[in-house]
């Protein structure tokens, strides 16, 4: 069982790599190099802040785009090309296929983020000529960004299990955007009354709390991140993703592959 999930995940990773997904690293490298050179010339005293802000935001955007645009094709492409037929006619269960696909894309994003993280530290070294103790918080921010990717990957997989690739992309991206404003949504829910209040409260629980996973600003200002926040966010992200993947599996189990 676990070995089949691993083989499917590995093949998904291999597909992404050979599909030149990691080429985005070139764009990221150019952005960081250009950013570091420019920051070094125009900013005085805030080089670190600008590089960390720019680097982490770029990691987040690049990763979300990859998670959505590859995620929407994870299942639909396999159905369209009928490759799924030759997989499901083997001793592979549908949930193993969905889970393998999820881990494959998540793994791709982790590897991608690892190299981007190296790029940030290289840029920091270039502009500041040394590392500071507080730079370690950048690693925490990167970790929380990876958790965002995992949630978005799971959501995209969930939507693509029953809707078209285009709609899946729209739904997943919309939830990501709303999730980045989830604190505001919760704030609104606490002051709204009646049906609006109920709806806003319901929505605030359904929408992923991406805002809680965004510590870019704090890290850029060298503020420490509480261990409890990291722990709770890890639990939240894993639980949310697991539920989305389970949802995708439930839908996919009942789907007729016409």
């Amino acid at each position, binding site marked *: 069982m676990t070995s089949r999930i691993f083989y499917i995940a590995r093949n998904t990773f291999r597909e992404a790599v*050979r599909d030149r997904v990691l080429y985005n690293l070139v764009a990221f490298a150019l952005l960081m190099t250009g950013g570091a050179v420019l920051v070094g010339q125009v900013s005085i005293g805030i080089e670190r802040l600008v590089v960390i802000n720019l680097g982490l935001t770029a990691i987040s955007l690049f990763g979300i785009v990859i998670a959505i645009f590859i995620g929407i094709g994870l299942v639909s492409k396999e159905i369209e090309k009928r490759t799924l*037929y030759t*997989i*499901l*006619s*083997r*001793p592979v269960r549908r949930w193993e296929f969905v889970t393998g696909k999820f881990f494959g894309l998540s793994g791709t994003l982790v590897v991608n983020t690892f190299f981007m993280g190296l790029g940030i530290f290289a840029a920091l070294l270039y502009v500041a000529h040394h590392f500071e103790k507080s730079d370690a918080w950048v690693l925490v921010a990167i970790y929380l960004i990876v958790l965002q990717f995992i949630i978005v990957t799971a959501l995209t997989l969930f939507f693509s299990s029953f809707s078209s690739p285009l709609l899946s992309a729209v739904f997943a991206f919309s939830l990501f955007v709303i999730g980045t404003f989830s604190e505001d949504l919760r704030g609104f829910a606490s002051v709204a009354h009646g049906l609006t209040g109920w709806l806003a409260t319901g929505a605030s629980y359904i929408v992923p709390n991406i805002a809680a996973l965004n510590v870019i600003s704090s890290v850029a200002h060298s503020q420490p991140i509480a261990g409890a926040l990291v722990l709770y966010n890890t639990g939240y992200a894993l639980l949310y993703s697991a539920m989305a993947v389970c949802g995708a599996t439930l839908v996919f189990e009942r789907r*007729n592959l016409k």
Partner: protein
Amino acid sequence: MSAIEILGLEKTYAVGFLRKQEKRALHPLHLAIGDGEIFGFLGPNGAGKTTTLKMLMGLVSPSAGSARILQMDFRNPAVKAQIGFLPEQPYFYDYLTARELLDYYGQLSGLGGKDRSLRIRELLGKVGLQQAGDVQLRKFSKGMLQRVGIAQAILHDPKVVFLDEPMSGLDPMGRREVRDLMEQLKQEGKTIFFSTHILLDAEALCDRVAILHQGELKGVGSIATLTAGIKGKVEVFWQGSNIPASMQSLGAECHVTGDTVRAIISEEFQDNAIDLLRRDKLRLISIVPLRKSLEDYFMQQVKPGATSGAGA
């Protein structure tokens, strides 16, 4: 002993905007396919052949009915280890080489590392792709992809092989190679269930066939059994270019070539035709019975208003 038993499988799809209308893709289907048999599942496009295969593979859930493969319920995961499947017009992962693809499928089928490598090497040779094993599949022709498709279907040495239109889109050489491969699989004792609309292939290969039309089983049996009920035809040649007027009334199709006339008539009117030729003093050259083909039977079954044929 039956390798495959289809017990009233049927499929109905909900159609229309409100999904309140029903479209029946397959009427209750009952079939039994013997162990080691090559069984042809014939029918025009849209007859329900692929739907049946997809239900047997667990890709589409049946609306009713069941099936047993190798004495097990077709939904039993243990069945999957014993069957191989080639979908219609297969299209594999472009970015993999043939060897990598087979390796991936071998892993999913639970083949161990050493056995897998040996089996892949053996199979690439068997399907004539030993030179192309390390070429990415995006560079493969349609025929080569079909051969990779067959290789993946038999990779784990299954007892029953399901092939959906295995000769579709292949050139005569490719069709011949696939036919040879299927015969070889039969010799190895495998049961082959394949769908096709190429009747010549079915005639050349199948122990028995079933004919499906608009989701309904029209006939099942060996080709000899099915064609036995067809009214035979004879080909009559005579010298000259005259066609006796009453020859047309026998339903003859006549063609004049030089100083020879060729007429095709129903076997039952053969004596009447000879009498007519004698009466008009025309010189008979030959009378040749025409072979009753599967095509004749097929056309008879799928023409509008046809009723179901004999089963065996």
